[in-house]
């Protein structure tokens, strides 16, 4: 039971005390987490961006092109002064323009074409597979994908055959949400088990 483990364990207990009700111990831990996290990210941002991408280039390489993003950054700081906050829109415009320009080809490639390619398969089962199951699985993927897309197609009213097809899409969506929910619950539970193992094992030494 060393000092570091004891500190980590006591802070964990402070957080778990919220299960009883909101209390000063929980509030202390919550505020500490906010402060430490902000401090951590500030240090990381200084080490990873300010030093190599601004200070080094300006002072060691005499690269004055960094002045442009520095000015843009200064415009972002104008948000802190309500009278000047509109000037920050110029810097935000750079970020939004770059984001939009990068997003179009990247999204087309990664989220549309790759997903479509993965859905185009042969219905002829490979030799080492169960024939009927292989075909059923491909039908499920094709039906699921097209019906979900039909559900999200709002330019046509969801009535008649199209409406029925879109309704099949809602069942596939429910399967996806259910699976995602189950996965989320399990990941949170595994975190909880990890913390309990830490408290009972690493800290108190009950689990050996």
């Amino acid at each position, binding site marked *: 039971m060393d000092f570091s483990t004891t*500190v*980590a364990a006591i*802070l964990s207990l402070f*957080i778990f005390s919220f299960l009883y009700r909101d209390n000063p111990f929980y509030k*202390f*831990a*919550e*505020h500490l*987490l906010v*402060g*430490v*996290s*902000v*401090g951590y990210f500030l*240090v*990381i*941002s200084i080490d990873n961006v300010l030093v190599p991408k*601004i200070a080094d280039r300006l002072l060691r390489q005499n690269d004055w092109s960094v002045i442009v*993003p520095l000015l*843009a*950054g200064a415009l*972002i700081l104008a948000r*802190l002064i309500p009278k000047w906050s*509109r*000037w920050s829109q110029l810097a935000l415009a*750079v*970020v*939004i*323009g*770059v*984001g*939009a*320009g*990068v997003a*179009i*080809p990247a*999204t087309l490639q990664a*989220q*549309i074409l790759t*997903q479509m390619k*993965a859905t185009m398969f042969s219905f002829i089962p490979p030799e080492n597979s169960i024939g009927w199951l292989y075909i059923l699985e491909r039908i499920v993927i094709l039906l*699921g994908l097209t*019906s*979900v897309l039909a*559900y*999200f197609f709002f330019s046509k009213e969801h009535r008649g055959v199209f409406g029925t097809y879109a309704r099949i*899409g809602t*069942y596939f*969506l*429910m399967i*996806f949400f*259910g*699976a995602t*929910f189950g996965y989320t*619950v*399990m990941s949170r539970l595994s*975190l*909880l088990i*990890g*913390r309990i193992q830490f408290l009972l094992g690493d800290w108190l030494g009950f689990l050996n």
Partner: protein
Amino acid sequence: MLLKLPLIIVAVFGLFMLVQFFVEAPFLDHTYQEILDWVQIIYLFTLWVGAINLIKLHLKKSTHKKEAPYSVVTLSGIVIMLFFGLIQGKEVGSVFDWIFKNVQVSLQASMFSLLAFFVASAAYRGFRARSTEALVLLSVAAIVMLGRVPIGDLISGLIPDFANWILNFPSMAARRGILIGIGLGTVATALRVLLGIERTYLGR
């Protein structure tokens, strides 16, 4: 001028990044990387705006009698991390590293594990199988959860296999549909932004 300038900047930077993807030229590649660095520098300042606002808020709250101790804790956390991170460095074994491992990671893990209780309680109160869709959602969630724990295998060896099948086929199909939908929406929104039709980011 301040009304039109952001739209021009968005169009110029956006079109350059778009065109650069299709044209191969070392000069364009260099400029592309340079602009990505600029964006990182601007992000750094946005992070600082957030931090400065938080510090201002807690400095203000530290004058209130009831909230003062907690605000002092937050401010101390920021100052201590900045002090040790900048003076001593963040190598393994430093004070910064010790606080990160024993305070930040520990608090974060406990905070997220708390969600297990809240998810369970919300599910108990909110999830009633009032319709066929809700029944499907609940059944799939139950099968996936059972398929991930040893008791599922003890009940029947088929449960983990079925959970995997659900994840790999019907759930995957819906996921692909959602991803394609998001992708089409992203491209459409990006085009609207580049063409100056979408201006909500300017508060208009």
